[in-house]
């Protein structure tokens, strides 16, 4: 009887595991089926590197290069802002802050992670957008820069908490070893703690970037949504995610436009997948 029970439970757990994989595969297949259809009319090269996105003109022009560059620009901008601040914050929490400040900071970071992205987008719209407009004397504050700054806030909690974990899991003996050689606190952090935690910190950065590239709501609200090739950080851009979210509702099911949006989904999927795999590689290297 007991053996039978074990058997049932084992199989149930197996089923749960398989279900997760099954659904992922199903989603991926669905995405492929809908998305690849667009390549009947547009060549993959023209789709990826075409410079204009006019999906409802006649004939439709389906080049997503402006969208890819929009996504990259916003993401790289967000990374440049959030990585130094995030890693610095993690070092402060893990190594320098007294116990009380540490707890307050950690709670604050978690709170930041809990803010829904649409709320962040809304706050950005009424505060950040006019600020960017006035500081740089622009016709509009809805720019890639605004998006980058806002998304940096979203990447920060991920980066801080995972990087802090990585620093925390550096064996105490490393730190003591460096200090015992006469290293200062900063030398210990810079030459021992950070290198020892580097793979975890890189994983934290990758996961933070993964979060940014998949983000939709906030970028849609504050990047201006102009599907043109961006020439600087101070112009409106449109990201891959925002395009899908904005246009899926009005695309006719089964039309070229509809398939093109799914194909954008595939591109996003591939990018996110690549980022996650890289992060995973770094995390495993650490163990």
């Amino acid at each position, binding site marked *: 009887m007991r053996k039978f029970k074990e058997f049932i439970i084992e199989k149930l757990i197996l089923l749960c595991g398989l279900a997760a994989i099954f659904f992922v595969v199903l989603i991926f297949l669905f995405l492929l089926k809908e998305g690849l259809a667009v390549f009947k009319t547009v060549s993959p090269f023209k789709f990826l590197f075409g410079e204009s996105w006019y999906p409802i003109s006649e004939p439709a022009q389906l080049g997503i290069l402006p969208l890819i560059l929009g996504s990259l620009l916003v993401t790289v901008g967000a990374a440049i802002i959030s990585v130094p601040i995030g890693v610095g914050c993690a070092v402060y929490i893990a190594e320098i802050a*007294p*116990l009380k400040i540490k707890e307050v900071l950690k709670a604050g970071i978690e709170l930041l992670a809990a803010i829904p992205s649409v709320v962040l987008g809304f706050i950005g719209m009424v505060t950040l957008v006019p600020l960017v407009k006035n500081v740089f004397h622009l016709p509009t504050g809805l720019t890639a820069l605004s998006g980058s700054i806002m998304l940096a806030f979203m990447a920060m909690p991920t980066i801080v908490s995972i990087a802090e974990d990585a620093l925390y899991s550096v064996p105490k*003996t*490393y*730190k*003591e*070893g460096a*200090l*015992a*050689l*006469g*290293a*200062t606190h900063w*030398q210990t952090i810079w*030459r*021992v703690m950070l*290198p*020892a935690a580097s793979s975890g910190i890189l994983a934290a950065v990758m996961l933070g970037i993964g979060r940014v590239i998949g983000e939709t709501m906030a970028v849609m609200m504050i990047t201006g949504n102009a599907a043109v090739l961006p020439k600087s950080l101070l112009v409106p851009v449109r990201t891959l995610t925002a395009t899908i979210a904005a246009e899926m509702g009005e695309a006719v099911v089964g039309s070229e436009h509809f398939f093109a949006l799914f194909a954008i989904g595939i591109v996003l999927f591939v990018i996110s997948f690549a980022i996650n795999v890289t992060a995973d590689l770094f995390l495993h290297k650490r163990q």
Partner: protein
Amino acid sequence: MVKFDIKDLNIWFGAVHALKRVSMDVRANEILSVIGPSNSGKTTFLRMLNRLNDLNQNFKMSGSVKLDQNEIKTIDPELLRKRVGMVFALPLPLPLSIFDNVAYGVRMHGTKNKKTLEEIVEKSLKEAYLWEEVKDRMDTSAFKLSGGQQQRLCIARTLAVEPEVILFDEPCSGLDPISTAKVEDAMVNLKQKYTIVLVTNNVKQAARVGNRTAFFLGGELIELSATERIFTAPADQRTDGYIRGKFG
């Protein structure tokens, strides 16, 4: 000559009274062995000498510890730790080459000249009795070395910053007897130039290498005298009991 002069030293970690009214000295160019069961305060004592205890936020102390007549509280901790090096229980090479491991501390203290570095590294490795075994593969990773070699590498790394005192915290606890013998040879050789404090769980090791031996129990210094005396005619019954293996 007295190197460390310790008077009425009390140490607390939070509510735990880890060292109780310890007064003793460490003489220059001797090997002082410190023995005692776990929780006897011997490691706390050792970590007092280079102020590693300061890292613990609950650490409190009273009394005085002087290095060459200067209160160690008044010495900059980085400077103190350069003068008072430490070798830990587990060999702890950094993920770098053999050369870079030994040169690590020296570089950190500002020496950049390649020639000088090479000289220091060679000298330190020789003093740690490791040079002959590694001189042809200085660029290989330190992790390729055996446990005993890694521990001697850590000794060399400590020597490279030219300390005056070296603290050994159970340096052979993870080593086989042959590696242990090599580390002990290195220690005996080192005492001509350095002062050595050796905390060990291995009573026989204390008998083999120590000039004097201190016995700690429950945070108190029970007895400190010449090693032969401790092991032949200890003054205190508890010392006798411990070295005969009756407790601990």
